[in-house]
């Protein structure tokens, strides 16, 4: 009881404690009352008027200071601000240039990607060309093979030609031999005819004559058919 009273009395003597007590007791009431006031349109208009008055006063003061500075040939705040504004404008231009550089950079990156794509396509075309090249080499090899085969055929044809020539020679040889035989046969024939003539002459001299048909003469060469008849037999020989 005594402590409580002492505390209360000490608070009464403590200005800060009193201030706090007063605040706590009145805060909510005052806040509500002030809230009602400041939320009203009337307060807004009054505040606006007050602000206008302050601004008008400031303008008068500013004009006064500006006039004095102008009279002293000193730069005013507006003059300094204008310089600052110019710097800001310059900075903006630098920023715009930077923007364009970034855009260009992005576009270059895009172009680079396109170039890489085109490069890939070129590599693809190169691969296809290499493929075609390989196929051409294959075709070339095939042509060479065909050439070799043709050369082989040619050799065989040449061989056949040689063999034909050989055959021809043999045929000629055979012809010559036939001719020789023919000549011999003619010789034999002539000899036979002579002997027949001699025999006839002998028979005429010794008896009745025997009629022997005359043998036709054989051509020297050529493909002829001749019939040689010998006394007592007949033979037919066909040559080509």
């Amino acid at each position, binding site marked *: 009881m005594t402590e409580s009273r002492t505390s209360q009395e000490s608070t009464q003597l403590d200005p800060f404690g009193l201030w706090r007590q007063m605040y706590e007791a009145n805060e909510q009431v005052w806040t509500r009352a002030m809230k009602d006031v400041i939320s009203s349109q009337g307060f807004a208009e009054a505040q606006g008027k007050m602000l206008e008055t302050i601004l008008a006063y400031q303008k008068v003061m*500013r004009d006064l200071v500006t006039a004095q500075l102008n009279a002293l040939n000193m730069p005013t705040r507006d003059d300094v601000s204008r310089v600052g504004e110019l710097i800001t404008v310059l900075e903006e231009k630098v920023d715009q240039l930077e923007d364009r550089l970034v855009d260009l950079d992005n576009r270059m990156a895009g172009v680079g990607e396109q170039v890489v794509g085109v490069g890939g396509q070129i590599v693809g075309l190169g691969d296809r060309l290499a493929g075609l090249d390989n196929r051409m080499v294959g075709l070339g090899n095939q042509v060479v093979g065909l050439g070799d085969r043709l050369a082989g055929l040619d050799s065989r044809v040449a061989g056949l030609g040689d063999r034909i020539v050989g055959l021809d020679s043999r045929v000629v040889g055979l012809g010559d031999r036939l001719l020789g035989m023919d000549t011999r046969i003619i010789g034999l024939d002539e000899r036979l005819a002579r002997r027949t003539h001699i025999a006839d002459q002998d028979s005429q001299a010794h008896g009745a004559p025997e009629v022997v048909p005359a043998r036709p003469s054989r051509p020297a060469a050529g493909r002829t058919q001749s019939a040689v008849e010998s006394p007592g037999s007949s033979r037919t020989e066909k040559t080509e």
Partner: protein
Amino acid sequence: MVGASAPFLEASMFPLADAMWSSTARARDMMWAVLTAKETPIGQTPKEVIWRKNKSRLFRYLRTSPATHRTPVFLAMPLINRADILDLRPGGSFVEFLLEEGFDVFMYDWGHWGPEDRNLGISELLTKYLPRAVRHASIAADHDVTLLGYCIGGTLSACIAALYPEAPIKNLVLFTAPIDFESAGDFGVWTTKGAFPIDKIRESLPVIPGDLIDIGSKMLNPLVNTTGTYVRLWERLGDPNFDIKSWQAMYRWVNEGTPFPGAAYYDWITRFYQENRLIKGTLEVAGRRVRLSDIRLPLLNVAAAADSIAPRPTTAAILGCVSSTDKEELLLQGGHVGIVVGRSARNGLWPRVVDWLARHD
């Protein structure tokens, strides 16, 4: 009076003196915490700048081991705050968590705009800045990225995904990203056409100071966001487990808003808040119509139920607009910032997001 003071006199004077001394010491600590918050280091995860444009920088976080997931995570941050919210403190960093889970992480920080950026509109951000950053991250990682946008960064990420189906984006993740501004809460009321002097603002301010936007955010809940911050700090200073460095990091982040280029702010208020063009499909960027139905990427939409900056109706619409067949939503209890970096995020949101990312690697 004497009778009333008698019990007081009966009590020892020392407890009272102790209480006063303790209170004074805590007040001193509070002052110290607030005044030195600006020096608290935030965004400490090692990283390198891999691209920069104007004031914006694209960071790649350094890994000590190779990533185990193929798809890197690209973090598109809000325009109105420092980008460090997802890398606030070691142990409380979503970036650190993603790295530990094996992801390659990129973060796009819009930087601190100056008066010379007065004519930088949403169109410029959607054509000259964010898409280029995504492309550079993709080139650096050599893979399409998961585009993860937080708050306005999420809205712009959705626009990018719709505008550039050919962009190197594999998945889309949105953290509390407003899409439909029909019921945009108090911001919607304050920026009503006629009441909000947007033309005068455009004419007078080359860049909208971070403080002005910060005031607007704090006005959403003035008492809690101003006095309440210090009351809660006061209370927690008595807790021996209180991590004052984390509080300071968050305090610093909340109070160090970044300026919003005048033209972009004008576009944001008129085209998004006042005319609600994005959801209507009438938003045009560099002559091209932004159609959310052109989004076909796998989508994870993370929303906060008690979000006063991007109220629930503004974040709920995206699932019905996209053509993605693979779409999922995580609706968490908490506020716009709380679900993403609060103490519960490490055990709540982060593992679930990582699980989704792993399934969509």
